[in-house]
C-alpha cells in the first residue's frame, strides 16, 4: 500500500494525494457539465474546462518534476514575477464585475491573482526559511509584513477581496507552523477580530436603526464619521492600555510595558482597518454581510443565493437525484452553480454521499499534505507544505461554510471542482509542488 512508511523508499509520487486530486477533478468535470446543462462540447464552459484540465495537469507534472528547492533559491525573481503579474493586470487587465483582475488573451483569459496565491506562499516560505532562529523575533514579522504588504496592496487595488480572504489565513498558518511567537499571532488575530468586529457591528446597526435609540450605540455608530471621533477613540484606547499596565503593576505581575503599547497599537490598527473596510465595501459586499447576519430578512435578495443552494442540497437527500437530473440547478435556481456554488449541484445530484465524498477527499488531501510536510528533506519543504495546507484548509472551510450558512458568501471557488481555469492551474501547481517535496524526501532510513 501507499502508506509512507512502507513505500517511502521507492515511490516518487504520493498516489493517495494524486488519486484524491484526480477524483475531485473528475467529479468536478461531471458536475460542471450537469450544471451548465450540456453534455456536448459546444458549450463554452464545458469546452474551456476540458481544455483547462489537461493544461493544469501539465503544470502539475512540471511542478512535480521540478526541484522545489529552486523556489527557495530563486525567491527574489519569483517575487518579481508576482509583482510583474499584479502590476501588469492593473495596467493591461480588463474589468469584470467591477474588478480589474483579468488578462484577456485571444484564446483564453486568466486571473493572475490565482497563481499569485501559490507564489506568495512559496516566497513567504523561502523568506521564513532564511530567518532561522530569528523566527521568534518581532523583526521577522515586520519584515514579512513589508514583503507581502505590496502584494496585498496591489490585490486590493483590483480589488479582489476573495484573494485576500484565502491568502491571509494561509500565511497565518504558515507563520504558525514556522514557529512564530504565539503572542504575535494572537495580536494578528486580535487585529483581524477588531477590524471584523467594527465592520460587522456597523453593518448590524445599519440594519437595525431602532438600536440607535441607545445613546452609546449611536455614538459607536458615528465613530467612523469624523476625525474627532476617531481621535477620541484612540485617546480612550491609550488610556485603557495605561490603566491595564497600571493594574498589572499593582498586582505585581511584571510584563514588559512594550506588550501593552503593542496591544493598544494593534487594537487601534484594527479599528482603522475596520473603518477602511467599512468605507471600501461595495454595496453587494455589504449585502452579503447583511444576508449573513439576517438570512431570513430578505429571501428574494442577498440571502437568496444561500437559501437556494441549501434547498438544492437538501432536496437531494442522501442518494441525490442522479447526475444530470437536479431540477434546482438545471432550472437555474442555484446561482453561480458551476463556480462558487458547485457543491450545491453535487449535493442535489449525488446527495449526501456526494458531498461527504468531496469533504472526505479534501480531508484526505489535507492529511497527505501534512504527512508530506513531515517527510520533507528540508525545512523549506515543510514550510511550503504548511502554507499550501493552510490554503486548502481555508478553501475548504470557507466554501463549505458558505453553503451551510456558517460563513458569509465570499465568492470563493472549491478547487478542482469549480469551473475556472486559473484556479485549477494554481491548485494543481500547489499540489505539484507538494508532490515534488514528496519525491525529494529523505529516502535513506
Amino acid at each position, binding site marked *: 500500500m501507499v502508506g509512507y512508511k512502507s513505500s517511502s523508499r521507492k515511490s516518487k509520487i504520493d498516489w493517495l494525494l494524486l488519486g484524491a486530486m484526480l477524483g475531485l477533478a473528475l467529479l468536478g468535470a461531471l458536475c460542471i457539465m450537469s450544471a451548465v446543462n450540456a453534455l456536448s462540447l459546444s458549450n463554452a464552459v464545458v469546452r474551456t474546462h476540458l481544455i483547462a484540465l489537461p493544461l493544469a495537469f501539465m503544470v502539475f507534472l512540471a511542478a512535480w518534476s521540478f526541484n522545489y528547492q529552486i523556489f527557495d533559491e530563486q525567491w527574489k525573481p519569483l517575487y518579481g514575477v508576482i509583482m510583474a503579474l499584479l502590476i501588469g493586470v492593473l495596467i493591461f487587465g480588463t474589468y469584470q464585475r467591477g474588478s480589474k483582475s483579468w488578462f484577456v488573451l485571444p484564446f483564453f483569459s486568466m486571473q493572475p491573482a490565482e497563481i499569485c496565491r501559490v507564489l506568495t506562499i512559496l516566497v513567504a516560505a523561502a523568506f521564513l526559511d532564511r530567518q532561522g532562529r530569528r523566527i521568534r523575533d518581532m523583526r521577522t514579522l515586520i519584515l514579512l509584513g513589508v514583503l507581502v504588504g505590496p502584494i496585498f496592496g496591489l490585490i486590493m487595488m483590483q480589488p479582489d477581496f476573495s484573494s485576500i480572504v484565502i491568502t491571509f489565513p494561509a500565511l497565518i*498558518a504558515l507563520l504558525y*507552523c514556522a514557529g512564530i511567537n504565539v503572542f504575535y499571532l494572537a495580536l494578528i488575530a486580535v487585529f483581524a477580530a477588531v477590524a471584523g468586529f467594527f465592520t460587522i457591528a456597523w453593518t448590524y446597526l445599519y440594519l437595525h436603526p431602532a438600536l440607535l435609540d441607545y445613546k452609546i450605540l449611536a455614538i459607536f455608530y458615528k465613530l467612523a464619521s469624523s476625525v474627532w471621533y476617531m481621535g477620541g477613540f484612540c485617546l480612550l484606547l491609550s488610556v485603557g492600555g495605561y490603566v491595564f499596565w497600571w493594574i498589572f503593576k499593582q498586582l505585581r505581575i511584571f510584563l514588559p510595558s512594550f506588550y501593552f503599547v503593542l496591544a493598544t497599537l494593534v487594537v487601534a490598527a484594527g479599528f482603522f482597518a475596520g473603518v477602511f473596510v467599512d468605507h471600501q465595501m461595495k454595496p453587494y459586499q455589504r449585502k452579503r454581510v447583511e444576508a449573513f447576519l439576517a438570512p431570513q430578512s430578505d429571501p428574494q435578495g442577498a440571502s437568496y443565493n444561500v437559501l437556494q443552494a441549501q*434547498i438544492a442540497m437538501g432536496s437531494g437527500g442522501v442518494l441525490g437525484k442522479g447526475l444530470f437530473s437536479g431540477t*434546482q440547478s438545471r432550472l437555474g435556481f442555484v446561482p453561480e452553480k458551476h463556480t462558487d456554488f458547485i457543491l450545491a449541484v453535487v449535493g442535489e445530484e449525488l446527495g449526501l454521499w456526494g458531498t461527504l465524498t468531496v469533504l472526505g477527499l479534501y480531508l484526505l488531501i489535507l*492529511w497527505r499534505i501534512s504527512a508530506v510536510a*513531515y517527510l520533507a528533506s528540508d*525545512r523549506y519543504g515543510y514550510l511550503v507544505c504548511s502554507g499550501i*495546507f493552510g490554503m486548502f484548509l481555508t478553501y475548504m472551510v470557507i466554501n463549505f461554510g458558505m453553503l*451551510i450558512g456558517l460563513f458569509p458568501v465570499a465568492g470563493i471557488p472549491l478547487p478542482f471542482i469549480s469551473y475556472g481555469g486559473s484556479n485549477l492551474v494554481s491548485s494543481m501547481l500547489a499540489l505539484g509542488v507538494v508532490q515534488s517535496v514528496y519525491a525529494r524526501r529523505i529516502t535513506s532510513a
Partner: protein
Amino acid sequence: MAATKICFNNRLKSLLIVAFLAGGIVALRLADIQLLRHTHYLQLAEQNRTQVLYQTAPRGRIFTADGKSVAANAPSFNLYYLSAGPKDKDYLDRLAQDFAPLLNIKENTLLEKLNKGLRSGKALALAENLSPKTAISLKELLLYYPGLYLIEENKRVYPYGAFASHLVGYLGSMEGKEWKNRDQSLDYRLNAKIGKNGLEKKFEKEMKGRDGGVYLEVDFRGRVKRVIEDRKWRAGHDVYLTLNYAVQQAAEKGLKNSKTGRGAAVAMDPKTGAVLALATAPAFDPSMFVAYSDEPEVKSKRISEYNLAVQGIYPPASTFKIITAIAAIEKGDFDPYKVIGCSGHYDAGSRLFRCWSKHGPVDFFGGMAGSCDVYFYTIAAQMGSAAIEKVQRMFQFGQPTGIDLPGEKAGNLYGPTKRARNRSYWFIGDTLNLSIGQGELLVTPIKMAQFASAVASKGKIWRPYYLDRLVHSQTGKVLQSGKSEQLGSVNIQKSTWDLVFKALKHTVDTGTAARVKLKGFDVYGKTGTAQNPHGPDHGWFMAFAAAEGKEPEIAVAVFVEYGEGGSSAAGPIAREMLKAYFDVQEGN
C-alpha cells in the same frame, strides 16, 4: 534524519486536527440539511419549480328537503397566455384585436399584458372568471392562436337568487385576518372565495372541496418548461336542508309583498322540530358576489346581514294570551263558559286599561277568538301573575331556542319573580300588561315558532334544526346528519290542551284569525299586534295546522315589522305558507 527533523515542530499536526474537527462540523451540518431536513427542502424545491394554474373545485351544493338546489356551481373559465406560441408583433396585434372585445377589456390593455407575459416568460392570466358563453366563442378562436390556454374551473351560483339568503349566506374574498387564520389543511389561495355568512361559512370546511390544477414546470425566471401534471379537483360535500321549498318560497314572497317588506316567517315540524321555512326580509341575492367578470357588475353590494328571525326581539302581544289561558285553566276552578262583559276598558283602580275593541259579553272561546283584552285582564287579575310566569318558564321564554345560527337573542322573560330578582316592585298593572303579552316581555320570531310547535305538539319543546344531512360528494356517505332534539316539555293536563285547541280553532273559524282558514284542514291560530311606542305596531301571527282529524304537521310564526295588524299583515303570509305546505290549489 533525526537531526534534520529538529526544526520541524508539531504545529502542523495540530492544524490537521483543526481541519478534521472543521470537517466533522461540516459533515454534521451536511447531514442535518440533506438527511434530517430533506423533506422540508424537497418541498421547497418542488414549490420552486412548479407553477400551478389552479382550478377552483365545485363547492358543495345546498339542497332543500324536496331536492331543489339552492346553491350550485357553474363552469367559469380562465384564459392563460403561455409564451410558447409565435411571438411576432403582427401575431400579437391580431390576437389582441380578436380577443379584446370578447374579454371585455381594452385592446391596448390586452396588448400590454401580452407583452409583459412575453418578456417575463411566465404563464400569465389574461382574463379570469369568464362565462361559458364567452368561452364558447373563445374556443373557436383558440384553434387559430397557439400559446393560449383556456382552463375551466367552477364558480358558485344561486339558482333561486335570494332564496333563504340569511340561512345560505354568501361568499367573499378573504380579508387580512381571515387569510392569516385560514385552515392550513385546506389549499386556500389568496384569491379564494370563502363563506362569509350562514351555511356557506358554517360548512366552509366541508363544502370547499379540493382544487385541481395544471402543474407546470418553470425555471428560475418562471419560464414554462413543460406540463407536469393535470390534477383533477374533488368536489365539496353537499348539504341537504330540512327546508320545504314551497313553504319557504311562500314565506319569502309574502314578506316581500307585505306592507313594510320587513319581517320574518318561520315554519317548523311540530313532530320533530325540523325547520320547514326560515325567512327574513329584507333578503339579499348572494349571486352578486360571485358574478362572471364579463357580466355587468352590480353597483351597490350593500346587504343587510341582520337576521331578524333570530336576532329581532319584540313583545309577543296577543299571541301570548295562549299562555295566560293555560295558566288560568291549570290553576283550576276555571269555567270556560263563564261570561265576562267587555265595555272596552278595564278598571284597575288607579288606571284604566283599554281593550282594542268593545266586545260585550264574552266567554273563554269568544275572548280568545276576539282577542278580548278585558277578558284576559280579568282572569289574570283573578289568578295572579305568578301562575303566568310559571307557564312562561315551562315554555322556556327568555331562553334562546338553541337553533344553530349565530347571534340568536334570548328575549326576555317577564314576571314577578324575575322582577323581584332585579330588586324592583311588581304592580297590578304589570300583571295586566303581562296577560296580553306586552310590557317587558320580548321574543324572537324563531322563539314564537318554537312556541307554536310546542302548543301544536301538546307540550314538546324542540330545538329547531335545519340540517338534514351532509353527504360526501364521491362516496355518497352521510357525514353528518341533523338530529331532532327535545329541550323540554310542558306538562299540563290533556283537558287543558283540548280547551286551548278548541279556542284556537274557534279563533280561526270565527275570530280574528279567520284569514288563515283552509277548507278541508284543521287550522289553529292566534294573531297579535305588538304596541310600538316608536311607530306603527308590529303584526304577529302564529298558527298550526293538520289534515282534518289528524295530528298537526306544521307550525308557523310570522312577524311583520311595523305591519300594524297581526291579522291583516301577518295572517295572509301564514295562510300562503300553510297552503304551500298542504299543496292546496285554489281558484281565484
